[in-house]
């Protein structure tokens, strides 16, 4: 049998339901691994092994008694530390909220618990899901599971690194300008930002109301589809929540891609920004693979990346400053340098800037919707480079914005990060699959076909090597 820490959630659930694996055994194995290695990766802010073991024993009793079992029965999970869990601190990785205790579960936390999953810990993030990586906060930044000297992506940095390290099979992150897909990219994971409105954000500390999404990070496509099926659904407490049917997002995983029409946005990484050769080569190889599987891939043109980035920035910072205005006026010194420097420009934007950006957004969304009249999906790059050394702040400032994720926060389309290989340093590479609104099934279908024809998701970091400094 696969080592317990590398079991996918789906594999583990099958074993648990067949009484071949105890939730206690699985939880204990993950706790031991976290105890041994997390001091090198700093993925957890809160970690409650005793509580998790207690819940695992209850889960085990449920199996033995023949209770009806949820789709994630006995599976440990983690939450980015902006997502509430009753009785746990939600710190947003910030001195401002270091003593903040949640009095109820976020909608998504409740959904995971209803499905039988067990909360093992709260995970490192960039401060308030925006500033970072930072070394001036109450907790250190998470590090890349493939090499602890490197940035793990952000802002859901702990979620990405913990899943890649085999600490958890599943974690939730949030994505306002790419913060699920970035750590997915840099840690070799699947990570989705579903359609805006698909997953409730109630009980999640907001960064930008109209751009925020919550999404799962996993090591396999089928786990990601399962997790999204569990956390999706209408919620009266989220004004943006969409009252739509929640399908089984994994229903087409075995259908293949034969006959699908896929648009390729190449200018994002060859003209608007210039991606590194290794990333481009891996993406071109992925396209060839999909074509060999029967997909028809056709290059398409959209407006340049910079247009989307400008629109995203004005909306994000205007909304973020509406949220942070009181602290900015009373306690600016309690923010880390990175977040403060990113937030402050938002205080100078005008109401007209914000309204114009939202009007622009409507126009850009319409343009994208028209593309989907002709194509089943779009593929493009995720990051322009693989991960970079985390302590090189100058490099971080330069490389962090070099990405192609913000267009899909602007338009609200589903966007799934999919691993496409490794660079010469052994660091993961990634593409994005984008689909029409509320058609996440198609994104998973394409990712599953690609995964079945490649070995990328079967590679795991050897923490005895990658934890060495």
């Amino acid at each position, binding site marked *: 049998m696969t080592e317990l820490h590398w079991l996918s959630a789906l594999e583990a659930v099958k074993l648990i339901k067949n009484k071949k694996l105890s939730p206690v055994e699985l939880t204990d194995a993950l706790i031991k691994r976290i105890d041994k290695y997390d001091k090198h990766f700093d993925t957890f802010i809160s970690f409650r092994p005793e509580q998790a073991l207690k819940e695992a024993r209850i889960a085990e009793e449920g199996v033995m008694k023949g209770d009806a079992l949820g789709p994630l029965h006995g599976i440990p999970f983690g939450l980015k530390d902006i997502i509430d869990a009753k009785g746990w601190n939600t710190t947003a990785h910030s001195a401002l909220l270091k003593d903040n205790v949640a009095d109820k579960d976020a909608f998504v936390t409740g959904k995971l618990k209803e499905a039988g999953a067990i909360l093992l810990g709260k995970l490192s993030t960039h401060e308030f899901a925006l500033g970072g990586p930072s070394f001036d906060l109450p907790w250190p930044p998470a590090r890349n599971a493939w090499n602890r000297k490197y940035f793990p992506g952000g802002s859901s940095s702990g979620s990405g690194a913990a899943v890649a390290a085999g600490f958890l099979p599943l974690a939730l992150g949030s994505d306002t300008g790419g913060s699920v897909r970035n750590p997915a990219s840099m840690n070799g994971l699947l990570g989705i930002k579903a359609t805006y*409105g698909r997953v409730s954000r109630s009980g999640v500390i907001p960064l930008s109301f*109209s751009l925020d999404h919550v999404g799962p990070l996993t090591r396999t496509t089928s786990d990601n589809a399962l997790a999204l099926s569990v956390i999706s659904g*209408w919620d*009266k407490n989220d*004004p*943006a*929540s*969409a*009252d*739509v049917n929640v399908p089984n997002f994994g229903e087409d995983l075995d259908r293949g891609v034969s006959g699908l029409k896929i648009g390729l946005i190449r200018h994002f990484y060859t003209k608007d920004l210039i991606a590194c050769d290794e990333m481009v080569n891996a993406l071109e190889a992925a396209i060839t693979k999909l074509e060999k599987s029967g997909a028809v891939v056709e290059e398409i043109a959209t407006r340049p990346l*910079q*247009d989307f980035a*400008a*629109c995203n*920035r*004005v909306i994000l*910072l205007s909304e973020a400053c509406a949220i942070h205005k009181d602290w*900015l*006026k009373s306690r*600016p010194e309690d923010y880390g340098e990175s977040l*403060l*420097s990113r937030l*402050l*420009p*938002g*205080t*100078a*934007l*005008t109401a007209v*800037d914000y*309204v*114009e*950006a*939202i*009007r*622009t*957004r*409507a*126009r850009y*969304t319409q343009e994208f919707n028209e593309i989907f009249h002709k194509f089943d999906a779009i593929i493009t790059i995720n990051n322009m480079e693989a991960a970079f050394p985390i302590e090189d702040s100058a490099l971080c400032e330069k490389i962090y914005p070099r990405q192609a994720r913000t267009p899909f926060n602007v338009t*609200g389309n589903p966007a799934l990060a999919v691993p496409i290989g490794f660079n010469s340093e052994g660091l993961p590479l990634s593409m994005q699959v984008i689909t029409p*609104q*509320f058609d996440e099934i198609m994104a998973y279908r394409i990712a599953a076909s690609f995964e079945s024809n490649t070995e990328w998701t079967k590679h795991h970091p050897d923490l005895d090597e990658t934890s060495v400094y």
Partner: protein
Amino acid sequence: MMEKRDIPESIATLIGPKKTDEAAKKASDMASKLDRNNSWWQEPSHVFRAITWAIKS
């Protein structure tokens, strides 16, 4: 055309002139780069009004 933006005085006094100046420059740059080629009649909000949204109870 450069869109000059200023940090509110209540914040500027707390963070000092260096940070104020840097933030104002960044904000001006962001405002300048925004595509404002919108028609006068274009509503800002329809993107959030998905046809499938139900009235909340």
